């Protein structure tokens, strides 16, 4: 069984780095990008799950989320939105995200969430 691939879209290198370590340690393959457009453009090698920051420089995570969830190709991919706090919960759900996780999060919490969708 090949490793599941998770795409991390966040423009904070500190977050991208630590998420990569966590997920790789947990046995996932990780792709990263800090560019919103890259996420929208994925067509081949679709990830099994997307971790998307709600605010990326120059991109609105909600808009990206809505787009992905509207595309036949990508709408089935579980999408976890990363937000700064719980107050964006509503927004995340509205945008069609499967769930969300607020900073700062516990590693175990994140891994449990990922596992729930693609475990």
């Amino acid at each position, binding site marked *: 069984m090949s490793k599941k691939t998770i795409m991390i879209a966040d423009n*904070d290198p*500190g*977050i991208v*780095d*630590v*998420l990569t*370590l*966590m997920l790789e*340690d947990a046995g996932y393959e990780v792709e990263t990008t800090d560019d919103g457009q890259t996420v929208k453009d994925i067509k081949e090698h679709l990830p099994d799950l997307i971790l998307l920051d709600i605010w990326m420089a120059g991109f609105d995570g909600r808009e990206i989320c809505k787009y992905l969830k509207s595309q036949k190709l990508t709408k089935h991919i579980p999408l976890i939105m990363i937000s*700064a*706090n*719980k*107050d964006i*919960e*509503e927004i995340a759900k509205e945008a069609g995200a499967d769930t969300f996780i607020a*900073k*700062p*999060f*516990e*590693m*175990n919490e994140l891994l449990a969430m990922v596992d729930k969708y693609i475990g």
Partner: protein
Amino acid sequence: MTKTEVSILPRNLLDVHKAALFLNVSATTIHRWAQQKKLNGVKLGVRGDWLFAKKDLLKMVKENSLSSKATSLGKRIKKQSTVSHNSKKTITSVTSKVRKAIDIKTDLSSAPSLFQKKIITQSDQPSHMSRQEKVIKLKQAVTLTQEYTNEIISELNVINEEVTITRDYADAIIRTVRGPLLVLNKDLRIISANEAFYNAFKVAPNDTENRLLYDLGNRQWNIPKLRVLLEEILPEKNTIEDFVVEHDFKNIGQKTMLLNARTLLQGPGKTSLILLAIEDVTQTKQASQYARSLIEASLDPLVTISPDGKITDVNEATVKVTGLVRQQLIGTDFSNYFTEPDKASEGYQQVFKKGFVTDYPLTIRHADGKRFTDVLYNASVYKNDKNTVLGIFAAARDITERKQFERQKDEFVSIASHELKTPVTSIKGYAQVLQGRFKKEGNIEAVELLVRMDAQLNKLTILIADLLDATKIEGGKLQFHEGYFDFKELVMEIVEEMQQTTTKHELTKKLAAPKTIYGDRDRIGQVITNFISNAIKYSPNTKEIIITSSEDKDSVMLCVQDFGIGIPKEKQEKVFDRFFRVSGLEQDTYAGLGLGLYIAGEIVKRHSGDIWVESNGKKGSTFCFRLSIKKGARKSQTNTLVEEETA
């Protein structure tokens, strides 16, 4: 008897008898003649040996050549009777006596014309009386006349005395009046002035009395407005009240005077007097101008409000902030000009109740409907001498700028804490990754260090979250994610978590049965965490912390009791205030932002619950909250409903 002889006929009582003798008739006969005819409207009568008339005194006096004395007497009596009520009785009795005396004289003096006629027609009447009889009667008449004369003189003395007393009394009043007072005749000549007048206008009595008002002191009273007042208005109205005259006097400078004048009429055709009271209101006016300029100089909108909530006065700042002119504001409801009229009227009612309010927040609405000014009102009642509340004086402090600063500060804190979150998330993440790796390697020591590091990071996370929450509360942006959850389960979870953070303390649970309640699980958990972490923090030397929960059919209650330093009574109310920290020498060692209980208080309040503290000083404190179980008990409308927590 010829006409020439009659022309020298009687002018007094004695002469009646002389005439009777001369005509050789008795005085009675003369009386009888008089009775038979009515001459000049004078009905003559007989009383004893005396003539008297029933005609009105004044008319008689007018016709009588003897009347000059009586006239002056009558005048004095009249004057007296107008000034002195007390001596009225005396005067009446004196008057009647005097009148009687005058009657007699009048009758006698009226007699000549009577005699004249009688004499012409009956001059040849024979005498019936003996000469001796006539002499006796004459003597009697003389004696009686003398007696009456004496009586009149003594009564006149009494009246004079009374008049003097009354005049002294009136003089005393004029002198006592503190304001300048002038008595003028109708030609505006000064009859008298009081000391206050001389002092106020720096003039001497010698240069004042009997002078024309306008000629006084280099004609400085020759004021056009005063001339109009005294020469045109007063004669028409007889009274002038509070007439304002401003004049620049040569030796005393610019004065503002309040004039009150009254004409004293002395009867038809008689000279009238003018009483002119002059009140120097220069200082009062200056004081009120001073007060006015102070009020106007204030940048704070100031208003006065009547007991029924109407605006009675405003300053320029109020005009500016409302966009309405004074005339539009005065007389209207104070509460009209705020975004929350009910709150405004509640505010002034509070002032009438308590006597004052401080820092009462309201927002003034500009007439253009676009501009709003956040203000804090400080208001108090003002009273008259009798302690009756006349109204409210209210000063608004424009806090728009302060609010703006506060908003900026909150925004800054919000951004700052937000920015802090990202690196903390990273650090926490790295620590957890490391922890995982060391665990795999079996390096227990390293794992333990990383657990401690994680605990500290959690503290940091809470501090950042508190800062963010506090700014959200201030901005009204604290959101709740409510749903059904088991209260007991939450308490157990948190107690367990908190027990792991301390080795010194023992958390004892005394919990009621499981109960499902409705609310924001995380936020209520935050309150419990705060209570327990405070209990740990403020009881460094005692071990036990008791967590008690109880429930009834409508609510759940949770209390956390410690046996630490406690909270003095006077500070217990303040512990839920923003930035409150336990102070004092010993207490300074306790760290914290002073936000935890403030946030806890807000969370409980937003859940329509109660939060309180019990502490009897040094034996520790018990913090409690009570929450309603029912969903409908929420006040807040902004909560988002997420029910997944119950899953």
